[in-house]
């Protein structure tokens, strides 16, 4: 039944020093549909492809607001994500109550990292089967973190997790230099293009299956940056963006000039199914 003797639980090292249960939990993340996050100097964008179980069912949400200044994108077991998301919401609320300020993103991510690590070291627990992209802004500006089931958290400039996310990551790596100075609109276009890279052959971004989330900093009173709260764009709110990155229109429309050409090369489909 098991692949080897060392993968029954998360408290057993293999002779190579690996813990298979953690690695398997990492596989659960790859079963989820793809999510992309990109940070510029002023904003962080989260982008997701949603799935529906069947034609008549609704689409599973992929982006969740945690607090005014932070949100997550999830890939993997949605119910595990809900546990983490509830925890994060409580921590943020508690922090606001006691200190009167939004929770710093690094602190928040550290807390879920700690929580997840415990699950990898104690018998009878299992690692979380979900990966997160945590987007948010604080005094130090916009941040994007990746969270893995192992408890590993890392700050990224841009990242993608979930099914076929390697294609999206390749797109992001090619364009990484341009993200810092992106406007909100440009950020969205990069995000959607990255998503498209990860789609299977005949799948398209539609207003039904696409989610966009943005949080950032804006000029506040007396010139200090203030939080532009997280806003989730779903359904028809995403229509223009989706059209602006559709193949027929290519990248030429708004003239932001980067990432042209490659968009056409979307999905050389190896047949991996993206729906659940």
């Amino acid at each position, binding site marked *: 039944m098991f692949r080897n003797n060392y993968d029954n639980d998360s408290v057993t090292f293999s002779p190579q020093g690996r813990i298979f249960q953690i690695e398997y939990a990492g596989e659960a993340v790859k079963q989820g549909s793809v999510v992309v996050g990109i940070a510029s100097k002023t904003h962080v964008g989260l982008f997701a492809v949603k799935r529906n179980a069947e034609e008549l069912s609704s689409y599973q949400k992929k982006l969740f607001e945690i607090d005014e200044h932070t949100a997550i994108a999830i890939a993997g077991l949605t119910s595990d994500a809900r546990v983490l998301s509830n925890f994060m919401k409580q921590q943020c609320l508690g922090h606001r109550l006691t*200190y009167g*300020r939004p929770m710093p993103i*690094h602190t928040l991510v550290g807390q879920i990292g700690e929580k997840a690590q415990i699950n990898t070291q104690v018998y009878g627990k299992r690692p979380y089967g979900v990966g997160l992209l945590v987007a948010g802004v604080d005094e*130090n500006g916009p941040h994007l973190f990746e969270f893995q089931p192992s408890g590993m958290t890392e700050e990224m400039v841009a990242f993608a997790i979930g099914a076929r996310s390697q294609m999206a990551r390749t797109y992001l790596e090619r364009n990484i230099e341009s993200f810092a100075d992106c406007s909100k609109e440009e950020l969205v276009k990069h995000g959607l293009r990255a998503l498209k890279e990860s789609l299977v052959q005949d799948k398209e971004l539609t207003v039904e299956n696409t989610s966009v989330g943005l949080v950032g900093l804006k000029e*506040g009173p007396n010139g200090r940056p203030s939080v532009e709260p997280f806003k989730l764009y779903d359904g028809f709110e995403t229509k223009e963006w989706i059209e602006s990155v559709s193949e027929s229109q290519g990248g030429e429309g708004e003239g932001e000039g980067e990432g042209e050409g490659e968009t056409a090369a979307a999905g050389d489909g190896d047949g991996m199914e993206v729906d659940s």
Partner: protein
Amino acid sequence: MDHRPQAWGRPRDDVYGAYDHSYMQENGPKQNTQQPIVTGTSVIGIKFKDGVVIAADNLASYGSLARFTDVKRLRPFADSSILGFSGDISDMQYLDRHLTELSLSEAYESPDKPRLNAANLHRYLSKLLYNRRSKFDPLWNHLLVGGLDDNGEPFLAAADLLGSTYSAPSLATGFGAMLAQPIMRRYVPDEESAKKLTREEAVDIVKEAMKVLFYRDARSLDTYSLAVVTKDGVELKEDEKLENQSWAFADRIKGYGTQTV
């Protein structure tokens, strides 16, 4: 002489009478702190255009006894805020240690720059004080917190042992609320006038108010600490002396000093 071990170290019944056990009731209501023991008197603070000035004298009284004369009652936090404590000194020391803990854990998260500003700190302390009073075990202090707020504007607010909070361009605790506050309020009746006040003016007002407090508050001292907080940090002087004292007014007051009639 009673040689039973139970009697060792206890006052002898034959000399002092039987011990009145009602003083050590085991089944009465549980009691927590009922009053402060070693105390610090007023803390005063005033906003000016670039920051806040705070002062408190260096005395810790034990009742009417001037018990410790070198107690520093102003405490900087993360070189960006200042706290002034009046009330119980041991509770102040407890809070001081607690804040050391807080500043350490804050430094782990962002070693480069302090992120808990005075407004955050004030919110936190008021929650702490309210929490303790709600357990009927208050920390017997009245605090002033000075520094800058989220927008980099001068911030000055008070929190007391009940968890009450309030804010004004000038604040004073203890006796200072009666004696120093009216003086400071003459100069800064509102936020606008605080925005016009210079640092030097603010320091002078505070020094003047400290002098009045020393004249009229019998639990005060002429050695005091004075701190100025601006965006550049906290400048704290802990061994200031009141200058140019004049006790001439005392002549006309009956019951003062050596007068007998």
